[in-house]
């Protein structure tokens, strides 16, 4: 039998003015279950709280209703009060008779009557409360960063710096990501490799960081603090520990037709290769599609020249499991395919290139040794046209509806670099808007126009087509009201960026949500921008949305600090107001799993024993460490097997009944 105590707060005159608090307390005395009912000027004060504590002991109360201000204000206060008196903190309910009663009703009779109803509803609810225990779950003090670009590297460095172990899983043979491919960075024009490669080396040398390159995540199970991840490390056919990165194998390899991914396919590489000079790990890898030995069994030259004996044609994929407390997605981006944009002639002419290809052409370590020449004939160009927003801000279905954010700035950078190095080259930029929000960004763009004489044309290009050895760029010049037909030697397309295709599969494994563009969704767009709605999963870099290097690094650090905050705890205290599945009632129909935003629900085949039942059945189980208690599942469940602790079906119906009485 429940023994409920009701405590009506005056809140000075805030409540006691428009509500006859004594009458409320008096009325509650006759409510079944209520054994004690009293008032006090300020329940939240030390004295008020000690009165509650005394009453709990004196009247052996099993439940407490405080009629006071909003539970958003003092629910926690009174829960702690109850706990100090030896009562389970979840046996406390608040009747909000200030914000939702005394402050809005001037008529004392009306206010008093409503306060009584609200108090009765709270009593009706607390009668059905059950003591809840906040559970705990241990935290594994190791983090996983998926993706080894600048976002992943920075996140890993920051986590390691705090003293935690961290693994980077990178799908390509080296870390570095897109930033490693860049020539210079805006708005300072410092060399990308010069600022990135030291960080790569730091990561490689950090004892806390384990770089697992040429690998991918295959499976993720578990939950915040306690993930189990299956990782597949692809066969390199080269022993990572033995290879010294001397490159002798590359010199001898007879198969030279592999597309050089690092140079965006602008030139070829050998079948055994190191992606670029500063690769980390600086270890060769054999492309099984190109290797003669692996394809035909004949060759084996690299094995013969390798003085370290590192070559192993029989190497196989390695699959292993590791445990982590937190996971960071840092899967980055790629430029979109331009198949849907025939009008720009990308597939017709080698001299129409994407900005990332242009980056490689301008780079001293690139396919042309940093010489600006046309890919088609190696000639020096005199007229270059840049086209912005290729596939960005496109709602026609061909491209992406969002702004890719970085293109305005890198195009200004390219234009400036060309004019700086080759003053004889005329540079034209077609733009819709030039977007330069960022420190020193607009100044940078204006410098391109004012100091370097880059010709910015407000308008868009309709088509590009080859004519002789030139490219005709037909576009509109909206400010001058003209249609232009420029003769260009090269055209550079600022292709939209999109999340790396691996992200979607990963999101499914992590039960992390994505938007329609396949960017990871943040837990809150403003207040929790580096957390995924799935507890324990964090976001770093472009996988969450387009951003430039400084923003990426900032977000990487923020994600790392969230991870550190998590790993610093030995145990996680879980919110006990979570969903719970009654296995006797569960159909195992999976409807609840589909609406759960956190992936907290899983299914097991289990022997169910109940009155008249003994069978093996598929039933839902809620992981209380992951559930956030929204209750979406409870309504989806037709049998009522799923219920929410603290807001149970019966509790809410009891409130309804009390209010409608």
């Amino acid at each position, binding site marked *: 039998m429940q023994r409920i105590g009701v405590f009506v707060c005056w809140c000075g005159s805030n409540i006691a003015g428009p509500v006859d608090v004594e009458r409320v307390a008096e009325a509650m005395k006759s409510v079944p279950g209520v054994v004690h009912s009293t008032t006090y000027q300020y329940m939240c004060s030390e004295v008020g709280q000690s009165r509650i504590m005394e009453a709990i002991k004196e009247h052996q109360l099993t439940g407490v209703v405080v009629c006071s201000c*909003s*539970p*958003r204000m003092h629910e926690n206060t009174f829960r702690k009060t109850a706990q100090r008196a030896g009562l389970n903190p979840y046996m406390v309910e608040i009747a*909000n008779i*200030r*914000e*939702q*009663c005394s*402050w*809005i*009703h*001037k008529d004392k009779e*009306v*206010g008093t*009557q*409503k306060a009584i*109803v*609200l108090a009765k*509803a709270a009593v009706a609810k607390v009668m059905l409360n059950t003591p809840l225990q906040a559970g705990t779950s241990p935290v594994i003090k190791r983090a996983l960063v998926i993706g080894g670009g600048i976002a992943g590297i920075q996140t890993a460095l920051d986590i390691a710096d705090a003293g935690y172990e961290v693994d980077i899983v990178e799908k390509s043979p080296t870390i570095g990501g897109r930033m490693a491919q860049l020539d210079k960075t805006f708005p300072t024009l410092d060399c990308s490799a010069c600022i990135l490669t030291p960080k790569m080396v730091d990561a490689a040398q950090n004892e806390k960081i384990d770089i697992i390159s040429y690998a991918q995540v295959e499976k993720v199970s578990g939950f915040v603090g306690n993930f189990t991840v299956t990782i597949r490390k692809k066969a390199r056919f080269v022993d990572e520990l033995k290879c010294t990165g001397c490159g002798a194998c590359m010199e001898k390899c007879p198969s030279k037709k592999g597309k050089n991914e690092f140079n965006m396919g602008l030139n070829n590489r050998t079948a055994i290769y190191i992606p670029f000079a500063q690769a980390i790990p600086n270890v060769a890898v054999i492309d099984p599609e190109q290797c003669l030995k692996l394809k035909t069994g004949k060759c084996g030259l690299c094995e013969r020249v390798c003085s370290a004996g590192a070559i192993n044609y029989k190497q196989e994929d390695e699959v292993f499991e590791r445990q982590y407390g937190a996971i960071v997605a840092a899967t980055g981006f790629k430029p979109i395919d331009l198949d849907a944009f025939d009008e720009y002639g990308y597939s017709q002419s080698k001299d129409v290139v994407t900005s990332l290809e242009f980056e490689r052409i301008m780079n001293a370590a690139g396919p042309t040794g940093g010489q600006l020449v046309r890919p088609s004939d190696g000639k020096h160009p005199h007229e270059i046209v840049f086209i912005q927003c290729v596939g960005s801000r496109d709602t026609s279905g061909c491209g992406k509806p969002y702004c890719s954010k970085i293109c305005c700035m890198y195009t200004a950078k390219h234009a400036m670099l060309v004019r700086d190095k080759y003053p004889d080259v005329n540079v034209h930029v077609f733009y819709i808007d030039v977007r330069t929000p960022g420190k020193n960004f607009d100044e940078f763009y204006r410098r391109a126009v004012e100091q370097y004489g880059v010709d910015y044309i407000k308008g868009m290009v309709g088509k590009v087509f080859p004519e002789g050895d030139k490219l005709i760029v037909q576009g509109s010049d909206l400010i001058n009201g003209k249609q232009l037909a420029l003769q260009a030697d090269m055209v550079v397309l600022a292709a939209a960026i999109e999340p790396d295709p691996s992200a979607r599969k990963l999101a499914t494994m992590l039960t992390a*949500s994505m938007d329609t563009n396949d960017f990871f*969704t943040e*837990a809150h767009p403003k207040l929790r921008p580096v957390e995924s*709605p799935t507890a324990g999963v964090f976001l770093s870099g472009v996988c969450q949305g387009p951003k430039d290097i400084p923003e990426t690094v900032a977000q990487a650090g923020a994600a790392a600090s969230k991870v550190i905050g998590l790993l610093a705890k030995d145990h996680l205290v879980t919110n006990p*107001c979570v969903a719970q599945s009654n296995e006797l009632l569960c159909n195992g129909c999976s409807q609840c799993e589909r*609406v759960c*935003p956190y992936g907290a629900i899983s299914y097991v085949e289990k022997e169910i024993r109940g009155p008249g039942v003994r069978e093996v059945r598929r039933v839902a189980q809620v992981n209380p460490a992951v559930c*956030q*208690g*929204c*209750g*979406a599942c*409870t*309504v*989806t469940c037709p049998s009522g097997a799923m219920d*929410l602790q603290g*807001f149970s*079906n019966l509790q*809410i*119906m009891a*409130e*309804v*009944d009390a*209010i*409608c*009485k």
Partner: protein
Amino acid sequence: MQVRQDWKPKIVAFCCNWCSYAGADLAGSSRRSYPADVKIIRVPCSCRVNPLFILRAFQRGADGVIICGCHPGDCHYTSGNYYARRRMTLLFKMLEYLGIEKGRTRVEWVSAAEGAKFSSVMNDFVQTVTALGENVKLEDLRCKEPLN
């Protein structure tokens, strides 16, 4: 139909903890009044509102039921109000189909900053329900206190 002179409607308002309940609190702290006929039940999210609760309220004599949640896109749990939106739309259309006056049911999105909106929504809803009169189509007479 006999309506008592002093008849006042009974209104149950389900408010999500994060936006609408906070909006109701704000209405209070900014002293934006609305009729005392509205009684609020706090739920974690609008998606916690089971059609059973709504029918139960009508059964026990409620004259109107309103569900308030975060604006679409602002749900604390990211997607709860989207599910609630579908469920409540379909349920309310069904009640309308069964001949229940549709003014008795409503869904409103009220943010934690919209105290004034909360109050005006409640004023309007009470007015609508008052005009419709007592709920006689969906009630269980056994649950009613006898008319004096």
